[in-house]
């Protein structure tokens, strides 16, 4: 009997999609000049797995295309070919084609055979003509006396920031400048007119021996998140360098990078001293003993280094044994040498980044190179290694939801039991009460862990953006760097799916409108490479996602002019945030011309609507010429809501807490009527429309007089209203249940929940209620 393979198709599709995603991420991460062998292998493996399973399942088109891709990858991996940028492009494109093919096999869309043929031809072409280039790979002769490198001696950082008002008025900026001077030579390239106490754009250049993490904290303290950036000026730093090192942690490419050190590895240890001797004579010696080197071996070269009068970099490692090593080196204070022992940081980095190599000495260049040029890399590779080893199981979302529902039941039952036991008071045996208390703790823990199953790291969304930024910046001729942080921040799966589109939109918007063209940026005294920062973190019960850019900022005047043109009610007295919020109006765009990226004015209004539909908010901050930051606030999950319970007659309703501004008991004089129909209430000089809930819902209220109840002031997306209820009952976290599953939509109600006593309480739809207030006013007016 033949096995029906189709039952495994879904698994194949999911797996292949994952492999493709992994491949894309790796490709984008790849350093073209110096590809990491491990990464190349991983890309190859991904392609190979797709090919293998595609063949097994009989998807020959997939298998064929992947085969060609794999061939080329294999040659690169074996270093027969040199990786080039156009190859990465071709790989990415073929990844797209493969994804389309997968979709087509699942019955969504179709693949144009011409496109497939084109990409196959391109891959073959790359594979063929690269054979010529491969012969020309420059090989550094191993014996050449390239002086060893002093990469980390000085680094030049460009620092740009706009201080917060508080820190500028105080001594924050003055202190920062002092702190920075302590790190090295500080040049002030530009500063605000009324420096040092003015709020404005600072541009500094710091020449230091340290790393940027030493002083970024201080800047962060003075300037708002996103209102500062530190970039290393590589060109300035290279001027001080002699020779070169490639940063390929764990992949010593001897021909290219370590020519000078190669003899060492092959010679007996006795000769080391002589070699190092040469190095110090040359003046730029660099030697770093590794933990593996015994003290006896170290002493000799150290002594020689002492005599060297140069610019040697000597960082003794505490683990290296002989502690008397440190002082002699430090005594050698001549010249512009860099003699900073890094007792804590260095050993760590070295240990992490170096992979086991046959000879301990062969590790030296590897470790140093990665340390000097990209210290962060070691940490990153360690993190990705950890992610790869994570094990997981695939469970259908229905099963998880069922589990969540069941636990929700358990929580309600437990609450009912607890309530019953408190009613029993003294007659309840103590053991029962203890057991119930225990049950309460357990159910709460259980609920938390079950809810966390649905939580996914936001990296699922973030991971697609490097590609978006790369493609779009190429298209627009802009240089953009994407920085992400907080990828591990978790939020509900349903939110992850729904936040992807709005975020893509915000990023495209930043790229198209925010970041300027390189020429413009240089003219404005900025780094030609723009930065888009993508950041996620938790704040209170919310998750905050920031999309920031260091581009042109929002042009206030232009937005106002455009708004007037479109007949919107605006005035020059509007605050910045009010003006910026105008860009969320439908059809609003200040782009001079419509590109295929943006400018049609659809988009930002959709972004805001989508985010609001998720119960979130979006805010804009912008400073003209410095940058823009969009902040999206979302609830952690759609399943749970922070609510305030209010009573109307004998009914209980839940108000989402995020909409509640304040509540107050109204005075008779505060309530006025318009045309004897609509009522307004004066709250702190503001007249708000009043919605009387028992009238709207046709209920019997306990009060006939409005002054006896409570007014709850609600703010639904800028529209304020006062809701009259009988009483406030309390504050709860409620599990949201759908009313529509078994019933229909009800105006003014967004859902239902089950209270501790097992009764159903309806959740009020605040936007609809604010809308009712508005239509009341219109009727009256």
């Amino acid at each position: 009997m033949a096995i029906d393979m189709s039952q495994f198709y879904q698994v194949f599709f999911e797996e292949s999609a994952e492999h493709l995603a992994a491949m894309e991420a790796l490709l984008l991460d790849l350093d073209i000049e110096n590809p990491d062998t491990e990464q190349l292998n991983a890309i190859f493996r991904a392609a190979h797995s797709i090919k293998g399973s595609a063949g097994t399942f009989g998807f020959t088109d997939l298998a064929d295309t992947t085969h060609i891709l794999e061939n080329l990858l294999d040659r690169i991996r074996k270093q027969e070919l040199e990786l080039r940028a156009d190859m990465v492009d071709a790989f990415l494109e073929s990844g797209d084609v493969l994804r389309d093919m997968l979709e087509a096999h699942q019955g969504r869309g179709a693949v144009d055979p011409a496109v497939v043929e084109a990409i196959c031809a391109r891959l073959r072409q790359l594979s063929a003509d690269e054979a010529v280039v491969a012969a020309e790979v420059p090989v550094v002769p191993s014996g050449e006396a390239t002086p060893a490198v002093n990469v980390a001696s000085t680094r030049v950082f460009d620092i740009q920031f706009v201080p917060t008002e508080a820190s500028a008025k105080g001594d924050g900026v003055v202190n920062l400048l002092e702190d920075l001077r302590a790190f090295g030579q500080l040049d002030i390239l530009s500063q605000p007119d009324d420096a040092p106490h003015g709020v404005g754009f600072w541009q500094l250049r710091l020449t230091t021996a340290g790393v940027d993490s030493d002083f970024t904290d201080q800047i962060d303290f003075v300037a708002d998140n996103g209102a500062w950036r530190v970039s290393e000026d590589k060109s300035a730093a290279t001027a001080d360098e002699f020779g070169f090192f490639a940063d390929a942690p764990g992949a010593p490419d001897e021909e290219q990078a370590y020519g000078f050190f190669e003899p060492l590895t092959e010679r007996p240890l006795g000769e080391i001293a002589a070699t190092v001797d040469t190095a110090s004579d040359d003046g730029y010696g660099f030697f770093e003993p590794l933990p593996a080197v015994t003290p006896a071996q170290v002493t000799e070269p150290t002594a020689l280094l002492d005599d060297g009068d140069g610019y040697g970099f000597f960082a003794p490692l505490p683990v290296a044994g002989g502690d008397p090593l440190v002082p002699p080196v430090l005594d050698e204070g001549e010249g512009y040498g860099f003699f900073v022992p890094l007792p804590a940081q260095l050993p760590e980095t070295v240990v992490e980044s170096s992979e086991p190599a046959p000879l301990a000495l062969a590790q030296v260049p590897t470790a140093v190179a990665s340390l000097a040029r990209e210290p962060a890399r070691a940490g990153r590779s360690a993190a990705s290694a950890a992610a790869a080893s994570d094990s997981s199981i695939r469970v259908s979302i229905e099963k998880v939801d069922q589990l969540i529902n069941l636990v929700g039941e358990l929580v309600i039952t437990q609450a009912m039991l607890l309530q019953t036991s408190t009613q029993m008071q003294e007659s309840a045996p103590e053991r029962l009460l203890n057991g119930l208390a225990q049950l309460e703790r357990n159910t709460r823990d259980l609920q938390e862990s079950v809810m966390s199953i649905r939580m996914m790291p936001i990296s699922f969304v973030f991971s697609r953006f490097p590609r978006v930024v790369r493609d779009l910046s190429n298209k627009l001729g802009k240089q953009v760097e994407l920085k992400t942080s907080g990828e591990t921040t978790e939020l509900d799966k349903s939110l992850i799916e729904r936040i992807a589109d709005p975020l893509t939109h915000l990023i495209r918007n930043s790229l198209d409108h925010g970041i300027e063209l390189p020429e413009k940026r240089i003219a404005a005294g900025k780094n030609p490479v723009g930065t888009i920062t993508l950041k996620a973190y938790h704040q209170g019960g919310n998750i905050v996602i920031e999309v920031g850019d260091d581009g042109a900022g929002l042009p206030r005047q232009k937005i106002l002019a455009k708004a007037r043109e479109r007949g919107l009610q605006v005035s020059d007295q509007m605050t910045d945030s009010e003006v910026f919020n105008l860009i969320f109006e439908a059809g609003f765009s200040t782009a001079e011309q419509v590109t295929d990226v943006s400018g049609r004015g659809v988009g930002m209004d959709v972004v805001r609507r989508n985010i609001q539909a998720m119960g979130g908010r979006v805010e804009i901050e912008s400073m003209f010429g410095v940058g823009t930051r969009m902040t999206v606030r979302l609830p952690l999950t759609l399943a749970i809501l922070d609510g305030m319970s209010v009573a109307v007659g004998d009914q209980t309703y839940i108000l989402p807490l995020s909409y509640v501004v304040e509540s107050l008991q109204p005075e008779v004089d505060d309530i006025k009527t318009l045309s004897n129909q609509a009522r307004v209430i004066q709250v702190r000089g503001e007249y708000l429309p009043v919605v009387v809930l028992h009238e709207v819902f046709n209920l019997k209220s306990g009060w006939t007089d409005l002054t006896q109840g409570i007014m709850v002031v609600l703010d639904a997306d800028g529209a304020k209203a006062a809701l009259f209820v009988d009483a406030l009952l309390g504050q709860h976290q409620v599990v949201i249940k759908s009313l529509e599953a078994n019933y229909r939509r009800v105006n003014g109600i967004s859902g239902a929940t089950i209270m501790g006593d097992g009764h159903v309480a309806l959740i009020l739809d605040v936007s609809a209620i604010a809308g009712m207030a508005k239509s009341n006013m219109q009727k009256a007016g």
Partner: protein
Amino acid sequence: MEAMTHTGATTGEDDLIASEYLTFTLGNEEYAIDILKVQEIRGYEPPTLIANAPPFIKGVINLRGIIVPIVDLRIKFNLGKIEYTPFTVVVILNVAGRVIGVVVDSVSDVISLTAAQIRPAPDFSGTFDTKYILGLASMDSRMMIVTDIERLMTSADMELIDNASA
């Protein structure tokens, strides 16, 4: 089974196959509904009101974590005395993928009816549209109105579903 009960007038082998029906009373009338549509029977508990809903929709209750709307058919069809006692019964139906509770005066019993026993109902107009009646069945001296409860509950008349079919 639907097909079988619809062809109640004709005779054939199908007529001998009996289906089970749950019967309940509304005022003086006795109704029969397909027992496979019934999920459970429970006592009445005061539901949570739904604003601006028609009077026969009493509100929603919590049925083990599911929000279930409660319909009082006595109000809908204007039958019997509308009072809620500890003996008032709610029949929980599972129709068209939805869970709906129906308040009735009392549940009588479960009976077996063959298609032959179900007679077509005479055409009459009134609140209770004949299109929801599959036929009339008699047992002893009782007459039971065999109702297509799924069609009734999903109809626009009941106002239970958005975009309900007419």
